[in-house]
């Protein structure tokens, strides 16, 4: 069907539901996206949109037993990770897919030196190497993420590093086995802007140097603009729009993406008197979804949006959008312009 090479990762119609005492939460409810080899994809969404649960599902570390992956496929090089045993998954995690979490102080073990934590990861790759050799490799890994005096810093504990430095250590650990894909879930949310800029620069460098793919989860479209080739926007557990970063930021098709871009203040350009306001709150994902999840907040919503889930429409430039407004039978004769004010 597609002329493109097989993507490194393809998530197809993923459904991860949380079975809680209070009911079923449809955290991920039919999410689909792909990541090509060497590509950086930004997964953007607000809290509760399902972006983190998607990442956990890819790593198969969704919070069991509450979380159940009830449908879909997660294809890594064409192999469905959902068919793998937990023992097999152990080689995928860390080996083929690395992960960096939001708060490095929580993801690093506070009572082990960072050297020990790096060695733990290295030993999995090189079980037969001697310790001195592994230590040398650990020091190299630290040096590569820009930690000065790496050899000596192997003895340090996480608390001796600043937040930005801890996140570099987490990156070093995630990269030590040269994964094909690095998942970074809000890696800079806990960092200051200057550390954030440097860390994103580092991720970009490492990715290019090793031809690795990156799945960067964030709520900040500015971060995506600077580091990602493509963007997938999530809302209510589904991917509502994907496409090359430039197109998404300049010509968003989905009303939610359009609203998001107009709702944030900018550092340059004319100062806006008022920010665009999206009415209401992000959706409750408890109720089974009828129609489009964004419909209750959408300025363009019509009856159909409330009753029937929109199809995902694909475009020649690699963009896709899940919105009735763009469906051929609904669109006006001319192509739908980005922020259409009048109802088609």
């Amino acid at each position, binding site marked *: 069907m597609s002329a493109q090479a097989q993507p490194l990762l393809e998530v197809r119609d993923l459904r991860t539901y949380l079975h809680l005492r209070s009911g079923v939460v449809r955290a991920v409810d039919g999410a689909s996206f792909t990541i090509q080899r060497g590509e950086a994809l930004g997964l953007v969404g*607000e809290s509760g949109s399902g972006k983190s649960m998607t990442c956990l599902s890819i790593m198969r570390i969704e919070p069991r037993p509450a979380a159940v992956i009830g449908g879909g496929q997660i294809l890594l090089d064409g192999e469905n990770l959902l068919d793998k045993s937990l023992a097999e998954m152990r080689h995928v995690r860390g080996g083929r897919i690395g992960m960096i979490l939001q708060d490095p102080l929580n993801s690093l073990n506070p009572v082990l030196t960072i050297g020990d934590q790096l060695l733990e990861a290295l030993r999995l790759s090189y079980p037969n190497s001697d310790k001195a050799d592994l230590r040398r490799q650990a020091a190299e890994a630290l040096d590569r993420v820009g930690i000065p005096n790496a050899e000596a810093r192997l003895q340090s504990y996480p608390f001796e590093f600043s937040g*930005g430095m801890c996140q570099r250590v987490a990156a070093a650990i995630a990269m030590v086995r040269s994964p094909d894909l690095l998942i970074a879930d809000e890696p800079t949310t806990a960092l200051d802007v*200057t550390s954030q*800029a*440097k860390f*994103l620069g580092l991720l970009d460098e490492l990715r290019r140097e090793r031809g690795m793919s990156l799945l960067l989860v964030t709520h900040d479209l*500015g971060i995506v603009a600077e580091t990602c080739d493509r963007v997938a926007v999530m809302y209510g557990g589904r991917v509502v729009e994907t496409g090359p970063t430039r197109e998404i930021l300049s010509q968003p098709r989905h009303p939610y993406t359009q609203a*998001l871009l107009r709702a944030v*203040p900018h550092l340059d350009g004319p100062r806006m008197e008022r920010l665009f*306001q999206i009415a209401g709150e992000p959706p409750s994902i408890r109720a089974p979804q009828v129609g489009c999840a964004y419909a209750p907040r959408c300025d363009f919503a019509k009856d159909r949006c409330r009753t029937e889930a929109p199809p995902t429409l694909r475009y020649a430039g690699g963009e896709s959008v899940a919105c009735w407004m763009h469906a051929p039978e609904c669109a006006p004769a001319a192509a739908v312009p980005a922020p259409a004010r009048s109802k088609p």
Partner: protein
Amino acid sequence: MTADLLEVREVAKTFHLRRRRRRGGSVRAVDAVSFSVRAGESVGIAGESGSGKSTLARILLRLDKPTSGQILFDGTDIAGAAGEELMNYRRQVQAVFQNSSSALSPRMRIGDIIAEPLVVQQRDVPDKDVIARVEELMRRVGLPGELRRSYPHELSGGQKQRVAIARSLIVDPRMLVLDEPVSALDVSVRSQVLNLLLDLQKERGLAYLMIAHDLAILRHVTTYLVVIYRGRIVEQGPTEEVLSAPRHPYTRALVAASPRFDRVGVAVEGVADADAGIETQAGCAFAPRCPLVIDRCRVDTPVLEDIGPGGTVIHRAACHLLARPVPTALNEPPKGDL
């Protein structure tokens, strides 16, 4: 000429460290900070974590006493105020904090949370009037009236922040200290709360002192900006001017590091990472990270100097290199050992 509502003069706060096996050092969390806020004006305070901006907020709310300096409110120094005088000050200056989940008591109903400052300040207000005011404010900040009997955990993040705003307004303050009021909110809710804050300011002539790390939000809300680094003001001036033509290397680094939409695919070079030490050293505090550092910076602490045309609105920066031409962009990779 509008009189200053709040004038902060040379305020400093020193914390003494008591650590085992180490001599007791001290940290100047806030050092010689001076600025003023006029009635109805919005002043922003920008800085990264550890810059002392939250300590400054605590001092201005008089949750902490400054070690030295004056805080003039309506001409009266409240730096050492207590009792009745402090109570009076707190009626006029209220606060909204970042994390409304922890700022709101989990065991109180929303109506009681909003009413509390009024009940504390004026014990003799009849219940009927209190309820009427709570309901009026809830309507104003966009909270459905039936939430009056709910508990905080039943509310969304945006709603909780609206409760915090309503609560701060019930005593009719003249100034709000907003400490990262929207950074915990989702983008789509953030714009609602920012719009609400701006509308309330216009309606009530409130002065805002807004602390934030997000420069774009400060640009949107404030007209005057104070940039602090390690407890000292490095630059202060009209927000638009400071952000469009920053003069201090730290301000430039902050501006350059802020994510933007128009810079697709450009990874930014930042300044050197912050070092972990917190103890005060000689010279400019930014020197160890500064791409333009010269020898003098390490020995001689720069003082704030007036720059720009002058007049009533001051733009100042504290840097030995102010006389040098401004580099066009900090995006050019700085030379040197970074």
